[in-house]
């Protein structure tokens, strides 16, 4: 197995996630795209952990999983709050702070 096959898979997933963040209008879909991005980072960490023969990458991958869980919890609470106030979670309608 090459190092690059894992890194390029992670790069492809990352770019698909970036496309999702840019293209999606629904807040829940944007959160899902962010999950794609975080997962691609995890694949990178574990590939480099195997390449360097070190355990540090595993520790960081576990920390990223925990932070991602916290992020989804707070993010969905925010989405719920926005929905309760506006009956919509379209991100382009949230323009009150536009100058």
């Amino acid at each position, binding site marked *: *197995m090459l*190092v*690059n*096959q*894992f*890194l*390029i*898979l992670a*790069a*492809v*997933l*990352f*770019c*698909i996630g*970036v*496309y*999702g963040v*840019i*293209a*999606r*209008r*629904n807040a829940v*879909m944007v*959160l*899902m*795209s962010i*999950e*794609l991005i975080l*997962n691609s980072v*995890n*694949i990178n960490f*574990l*590939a480099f*952990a*195997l*390449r360097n023969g070190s*355990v*540090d990458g*595993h*520790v960081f*991958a*576990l*920390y990223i*999983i*925990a*932070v991602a*869980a*916290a992020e*989804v*919890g*707070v993010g*969905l*609470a925010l*989405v*719920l*709050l926005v*929905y309760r106030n506006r009956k919509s979670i*379209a*991100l*382009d309608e949230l323009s009150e702070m536009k100058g």
Partner: protein
Amino acid sequence: MVAQNIAFGIIAAIMVVGALRVVTVNNVVHAALWLVLVLAGAAAQYVLLTAEFVAVTQVLVYIGAVMVLFLFGTMLTRAQLGKEKLLNNPTWYLGIPASLLLLGVMIMALTSSFGDEKLPTDSELVSTQAISDQIFGPYLLPFWALSFVLLVAVIGAIVLARKD
């Protein structure tokens, strides 16, 4: 080695197709189910990378907990579960050149810096004991910080989503 490469190819193809469906499908629940496929594929890749503990954690946390959160969020913020027309921005097509440019730059950088470098083939599975020795040894302070992050996130989510 050949078997591992074939497994990698199949799983990678499934993951890329699933990820593309996540960002293109017009149904939030279907997107969540495609995301399950991508996350399971990522767990399989972790096993190929000799990271079995992270793979099991991925299945437990992502497929078990995060997907339930997503489905709850979908259920609580949408009246109907069918197709929806307005899931994309009006200028969604701008994302295609942006992400393709990013992908081109990253693949160029990766091929020029790693080329044909091979992963070591004789490495054994990383034991859970080795990971816990790291977490509760040199990485203890980030572990504490992470505990506080999770606590604050739980309290914050409760405060934000409370009715009154």
